[in-house]
């Protein structure tokens, strides 16, 4: 257990470092789509919610999990579509000029 947690901690720290490195180079022009895309990416909670539902043994955890799946799906689907809409305009704007 301890070893597993430690390796998860390693993954966490590496991901944070990578996140800083990736984002600090995005031009401010694209900050809104960037935020909206990362917003969709944290919809990854839908995976956690699915795990809760699929491993649930009581009604309570099942219900909590299903609500979380619903929330997570709204986050993922809404987030990616809205980002795509914004980025379509950027391309159009670039060409139009």
């Amino acid at each position, binding site marked *: 257990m301890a070893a597993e947690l430690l390796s*998860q901690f390693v*993954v966490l720290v590496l991901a944070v470092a990578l996140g800083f490195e990736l984002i600090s180079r995005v031009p401010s022009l694209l900050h809104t789509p960037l935020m909206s895309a990362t917003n969709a990416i944290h919809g990854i909670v839908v*995976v956690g919610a699915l795990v809760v539902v699929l491993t649930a043994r009581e009604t309570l955890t099942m219900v909590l999990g299903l*609500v979380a799946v619903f929330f997570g799906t709204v986050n993922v*689907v809404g987030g990616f579509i809205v980002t795509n809409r914004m*980025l379509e305009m950027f391309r159009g704007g*670039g060409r139009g000029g």
Partner: protein
Amino acid sequence: MTLGAGTTLAYLAAAVLFIFGIRILRSPMTARAGNLIAAVGMLVAVVATLLEFKGDASTLLMIAGVVVAGSALGALTAVRVPMTSMPQFVAAFNGVGGGAAALISFSELYKLSQLPLPEQNFVILLAILFGILIGGVSFAGSAVAFTKLEEIAFEGSVTFPLQKVVNALMFLVAVAAAVNLLIGGPMPVASAAVMLGVSLLLGVLLVIPIGGADMPIVISLLNAFTGLAAAASGFSLGNTVLIIAGALVGASGSILTYLMSAALGRSLSKILFGAVAAAGQEEAEAHDKPVTSGEPDDIGSMLANEADSVIFIPGYGLAVAQAQTAMADLMRTLEQQGKEVKFAIHPVAGRMPGHMNVLLAEAKVPADKLVDLEDINDEFDETDAVVIVGANDVVNPTAREDGNSPIAGMPILNADHARRVVFVKRSLSPGFAGIDNPLFYDQERTMMLFSDAKEGLEGVTQAVKNQG
């Protein structure tokens, strides 16, 4: 729990797709592909999860139902949102993500509380508590941000007496509940429920005092929170793809939060806890001083005859009036007469980071005409005319000159260095920070066009055409 090799590899693939997707979001040309790649990563992770934890038919059916409903709601909302309302819907999508993370953490705690104490891991308990707290704050905070931006409730900065005391008490209750859980005290599930309730209240209390101009910061911060809550729930579930994706978002949200508060010249803690600048303070006297006001024709002839270089400064008021297209039309009309037109974009010009860029892109203004504050500020000295629409605080010289001003130290656009200044504004009312702007009363330099932004700009465009 231990995952199968196939699932672990699929999660790794998803993580790589997220990273690569964000990587190519840096350029406007490849950004759309980046978003799609990240979406594919999400699909990979979801399918791998469904294959790993095979559920029975009835469970899968329920999941399918919920996923269809969630997708329908998300998709229908996403295709309908006008670009001006983007900040509140990003906040809404963010909030439900935070809510999901809190619920996951809560149900993991419930599962854990069924086990005998020696099998409960301290680190996992901590991760669960963190997930409940941050997820709950993000959910409730985003909901309040949504109602503020949609102008449903809590508009402006809402404060009440002893607010800080109440906040501190809430925080103490959360800490007490957390300690009780960590030392294996009585009623763990009830303590977690208290924790969840308090975190929701804290989310509300944190966001209600924050005024409109500080919204970009709150939205970035809540985005970071949901990322961290997702990473925490990844710890409690032992799921690496949640940890990686959550940490990436936590890091990106933190950077944007930092950039935004730097753009306002204030520290994050001041923005969050030093609520209410000088709202309404100088409003009364603002109307007594003389200004030079003009009609669209006056401004049109000034732009047509006296200006070769023009800089537009759009603020959120432009978006509220849906005047982006009118501004783009004026740009094209001036360019047809051989004038050089640029847009100066203050980092907090919209209601979320980079919002103004999106709005102007929608109006088909080429991206290379949108110039950041640091890059354009030296050009104002050689600029003939500045047209400021729906912005006030971001061009207020008091930020630079008066150390006691509530916006002191906030980087501003040096519009007052240009030869002529035009404000298109409904009235002399001050901006979100509630501070009067001396530039209004510079009668030599400044012309005020009291009008709705859209009508005003259309009038000026027509006047410029008539001159040409």
